[in-house]
């Protein structure tokens, strides 16, 4: 009993941070109508800024109070910079573009911090009292109570601010109906900026206070966005009080779950508690919150004319793709081994990115779970081979089927939400799979990675270690690369063809307007489920190909940071076009573009962090120039030009209605 109390109190610290991030999410939703995926990263940045100022990392160390104050000032400035760079230019862009921008901010913050300070957590000097108090017989640090108290006070203060001040009224008005708010003389830009500054300063304050209690880590703090999103969902993205209470409760619950994992009744494996239970619990909490709140989620009233990136028609694909295919085939034979490997990886990543084209581009649902599904497929192939002796082709079929079933199940759990809100469920699912499956000593790869047996068919080795070497006589064998090329071309044609067919039309109808689609007889749920199935099958296929490509599977390749980087790069390049998937695939970690950068441009180590930084920066720059994505923007320009030409000739769209008027 005492232990339960002890762990409850210990959970207050992380609960306070989750609550703060949840409050940040609510503030961004109210201020600018986006789900701010970067809210957790903001707390991390504050922790690092304070740590620098206190320890004298860049300049002479400051005393406590000036350091705290300067941190808050810098956070306010950062809020202004982010607002100017990543929020304001996108006010007229689609909600998807704005959400992707917040992913860009997250990637940028995390990569920048990891490049400057390294990936290991830092210990921040204590701000709060290190004293302990005794509560009903257990000794606990007083700092936990202060931290939780500060968050509760902040939540109350914000509630008052929004309920009783003109600023609060204006923000609420703008989030209910932006157009009327503009007509009433309110500036959405200034309101968004003000809310953003408040969010950053609040996050900064709690980040500074919590730094010494929970430690500052660039890899874990940004991911607290997941439980925070659960809390924000329970609060309907509007109530600070509920967001705060739910955040604290989740922190306490997770601490108790940790305590439970030390008990004898907790499910164990090889003598250790089953890992990832916390993330699985978070996922189910989010699903429950969605079923409970989902349909009542406020659709933010916005000015009209914002839609998803357009889907240009895809024509003359064969002519466009043929040179690329030919170049890949030649490259797979003649290039040195590391480049051959990179080309194959690029092909595999292309298949993965095609899954984003289907679910995000064609159906308009933002799902980030695919890389985790690919990982699931890869580990399944490994385990089936090593433990059950099931090899090619049955093993991959089972692996792809498993990834598809899980993906469809996640999609079905999220049917109540649509569009960008789906990112919440899929983010939680990705992290749950990562922690529950990949981090599991028996199912996952552990430290060394799980071995994969090469595929053989009728005794012929088709894998990367086949006896047919490259032109310079080294492995990997071009044979596997060429097979991957054939597979990629087939799937590329499949996804491009989907756009033109019956199913593709229904997908685009659902994307455009779910009610109107239902009103012409489209079964919206069925279309979404089928799309999830296709996307998951593509992801599973990519996973199987990854596994065979490297002959080993390691959890590190399927982490959420890489997944978000991929999502961002596909979007930036053109998520509604199959060509976008190809470009993003060849820019993925391990593929050709990063290899070139690694060899000749950037420092050898930390290439993945550098790529993350480049994608993050590129994303924000890019969204300003082509908010719908590079290739989509270019394609649209071309279409418009063609239209202009057509209009100068006798038009096909002549207003026949007037001609039809009876005399």
């Amino acid at each position, binding site marked *: 009993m005492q232990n339960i109390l002890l762990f409850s109190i210990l959970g207050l610290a992380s609960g306070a941070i989750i609550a703060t991030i949840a409050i940040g999410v609510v503030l961004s939703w109210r201020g600018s109508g986006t789900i701010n995926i970067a809210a957790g990263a903001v707390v991390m940045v504050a922790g690092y800024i304070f740590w620098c100022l206190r320890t004298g990392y860049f300049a002479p160390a400051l005393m406590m109070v000036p350091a705290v104050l300067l941190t808050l000032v810098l956070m306010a400035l950062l809020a202004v910079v982010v607002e100017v760079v990543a929020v304001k230019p996108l006010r007229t862009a689609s909600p998807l573009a704005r959400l992707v921008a917040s992913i860009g901010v997250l990637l940028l913050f995390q990569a920048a911090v990891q490049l400057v300070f390294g990936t290991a957590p830092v210990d921040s000097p204590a701000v709060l009292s290190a004293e302990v108090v005794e509560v009903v017989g257990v000794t606990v640090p007083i700092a936990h109570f202060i931290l939780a108290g500060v968050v509760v006070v902040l939540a109350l203060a914000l509630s008052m601010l929004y309920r009783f001040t003109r600023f609060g009224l204006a923000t609420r008005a703008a989030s209910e109906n932006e157009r009327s708010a503009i007509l009433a003389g309110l500036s959405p830009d200034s309101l968004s900026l003000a809310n953003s500054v408040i969010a950053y300063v609040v996050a900064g304050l709690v980040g500074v206070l919590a730094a010494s209690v929970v430690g500052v880590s660039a890899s874990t703090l940004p991911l607290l966005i997941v439980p925070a999103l659960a809390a924000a969902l329970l609060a309907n993205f509007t109530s600070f009080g509920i967001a705060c209470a739910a955040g604290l409760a989740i922190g306490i619950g997770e601490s108790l779950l940790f305590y439970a994992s030390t008990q004898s009744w907790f499910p164990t494996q090889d003598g250790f508690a089953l890992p990832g239970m916390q993330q699985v619990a978070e996922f189910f909490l989010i699903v429950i919150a969605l079923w409970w709140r989902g349909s009542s989620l406020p659709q933010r009233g916005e000015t009209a004319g914002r839609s998803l990136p357009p889907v240009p028609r895809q024509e003359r694909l064969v002519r466009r793709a043929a040179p690329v295919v030919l170049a890949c085939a030649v490259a797979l034979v003649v290039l040195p081994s590391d480049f051959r490997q990179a080309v194959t990886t690029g092909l595999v990543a292309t298949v993965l990115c095609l899954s984003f084209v289907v679910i995000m581009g064609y159906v308009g649902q933002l799902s980030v779970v695919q890389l985790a599904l690919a990982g699931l497929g890869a580990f399944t192939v490994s385990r089936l081979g090593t433990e059950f002796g099931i090899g090619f082709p049955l093993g991959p079929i089972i692996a792809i089927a498993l990834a598809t079933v899980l993906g469809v199940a996640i999609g079905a759990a999220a049917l109540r939400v649509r569009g960008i809100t789906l990112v919440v469920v899929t983010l939680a699912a990705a992290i749950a799979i990562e922690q529950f499956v990949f981090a599991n000593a028996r199912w996952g790869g552990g430290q060394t990675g799980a071995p994969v047996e090469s595929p053989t068919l009728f005794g012929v080795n088709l894998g990367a270690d086949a006896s047919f070497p490259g032109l310079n006589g080294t492995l990997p064998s071009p044979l596997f690369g060429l097979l991957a090329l054939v597979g990629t071309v087939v799937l590329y044609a499949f996804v491009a063809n989907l756009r033109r067919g019956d199913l593709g039309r229904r997908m685009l109808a659902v994307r455009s307007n779910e009610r109107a689609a239902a009103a012409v*007889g489209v079964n919206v749920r069925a279309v979404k489920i089928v799309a999830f199935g296709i996307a998951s099958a593509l992801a599973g296929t990519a996973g199987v190909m990854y596994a065979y490509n490297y002959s080993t599977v390691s959890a590190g390749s399927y982490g959420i940071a890489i997944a978000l980087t991929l999502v961002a790069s596909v979007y930036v390049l053109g998520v509604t076009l199959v060509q976008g998937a190809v470009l993003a695939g060849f820019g993925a970690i391990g593929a050709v573009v990063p290899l070139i950068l690694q060899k000749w441009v950037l420092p050898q180590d930390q290439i993945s962090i550098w790529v993350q930084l480049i994608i993050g920066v590129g994303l924000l720059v890019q969204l300003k120039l082509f908010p719908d994505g590079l290739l989509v923007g270019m394609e649209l320009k071309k279409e418009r030009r063609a239209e202009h030409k057509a209009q100068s000739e006798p038009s096909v769209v002549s207003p026949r*209605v*007037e001609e039809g008027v*009876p005399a």
Partner: protein
Amino acid sequence: MIQPVLDARGISVHYGGVTALDEVDIAVGPGQVVGLIGPNGAGKTTFIDALTGFVRHEGTVRLDGVDLKRKRPHARVQAGLGRTWQAVDLFDDLSVAENIAVAAHRPTLVSTLRELLGATLPQSAAVASSLEALDIAHLAEARPRELAEGQRKLVGIARSLAAAPKVLCLDEPAAGLDTDESAVLGQQLRRLADDGQSMLLIDHDISFVFGTCDHVVVLEFGKVIAAGLPGDVKNDPRVIAAYLGTAAASISGERS
């Protein structure tokens, strides 16, 4: 009276504590055009929303004797109850012909699987015929954003027609059209009705409704206050008091 195609009885809709529709009965016979009119907020659009399953309602909706009560919107459309929207929501990324094809093609598990395996399904004849029914075949390859408002309306109607509805519910098809355009639209709707298409028509343009419909129902505050032949309804004192008011004089003048 002949067996009605659409038979809606006791339709009630509540929004919170507010009763938006109270026990409304409407029947549409084969080839009949029924008009539904009433002042703003009378519950006209809510009635169509209820019929087509977009709001929760009480009462029964029967189409050719089949109870639609438990069906979701898309299933009601598939059962033969089509609708258009006041603000036409064309699918922006699809051409006009593709917009209509979405409604015309009824996917089955087999057809979807065949398509996933690479088969190209033939275009339904309903696409061309519904374009022709509204004289917009020349717009087939246009994109929705290139269309004028009147053309968008016609495409919206053609799209609903392509699903071969037994009854087509039209929510303000003439709103946003000029006088000439709505006259043409009226003729086109009349022609469809003469070919046997049953319709339920909501519009603000009273002369349009009276000129097009066989039967008119008047709603006020969610209740039916009058129903009958256009000529009878127009002269019903309750209707004049509740809805037409001063406008009545001008319409009677126009007619005489």
